């Protein structure tokens, strides 16, 4: 069971890093530069600072999942809290995707729909695996 969970955590760790690599193409694909063109400097800076932080969170989650699997499954309360946080983070991201984003302004071409389906599946897998790891740690604590 632990080995399967370890493999799943490594998989989603690699998935986070793949998501980060894919994210580098999102600004041009969704035309962020044009979308921000009319905004004041402060708003533009806020946007890029927040975007960089969210990117940084994902890199950290990915590195921890891929190289710190044993740390995330050591049965400690801190491991349970970290895994629980990442699980809630991705559940919230799924809720935002369907309940908050203006879906009418998203591109409708087939490849964008396919990309969105892939992203949603990845978010669900991240939430599921980190939720499983959280439950494992809580059970061991």
């Amino acid at each position, binding site marked *: 069971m632990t080995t399967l969970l370890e493999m799943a955590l490594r998989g989603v760790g690699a998935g986070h890093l793949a998501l980060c690599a894919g994210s580098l193409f999102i600004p041009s694909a969704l035309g962020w530069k044009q*979308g921000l063109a009319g*905004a004041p400097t402060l708003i533009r800076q806020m*946007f890029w*600072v927040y*975007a960089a*932080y969210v990117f940084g969170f994902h890199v950290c989650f990915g590195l921890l999942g891929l190289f710190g699997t044993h740390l995330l499954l050591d049965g400690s*309360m801190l491991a349970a809290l*970290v895994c629980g946080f990442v699980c809630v983070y991705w559940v*919230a991201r799924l809720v935002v995707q369907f309940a908050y984003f203006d879906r009418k*302004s998203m591109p409708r071409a087939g490849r964008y729909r396919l990309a969105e389906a892939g992203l949603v599946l990845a978010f669900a897998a991240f939430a599921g695996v980190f939720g499983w790891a959280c439950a494992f740690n809580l059970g061991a604590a």
Partner: protein
Amino acid sequence: MATETLEWAVRAAGLGHFALCAASTHIPKALGLKRQFAGLSPLARQLVVMQAGYTFALVLVIGLLSLAGPGLLLDATPLAACVSGFVFAFWFSRAVLQLTYVDKTDRPPGLRYSVAVWGFPAMFLGFAATFGLTLAHNIRGLA
């Protein structure tokens, strides 16, 4: 620094995170963000709000963890070192960005805004120092 002293410093930083979250709720009105958002496309506006929400939630979670479980952050395990290192990097980079990148020319006039312009980076540096010491404590414990 003694572990007990560091625990109190982490608890104080936790309280500081809550104070920062409370102050942050006034920022949108103070800077007229609603008006400034008018020039953005709907998707860009939603992205900024989502990213701001995530950052706010992270600050809240760090505050909760520091206040309720400073011992977890100081138990000299590799995970405690990773978490304290992450929080240190988060606040140190935030302070650097605030001082070198963020445009401060549009800030509203008045003493309290001038205080905020220097008070926020001072807080960020205080958090970075506390979690930097926590990281050093964990690394020493691991060695």
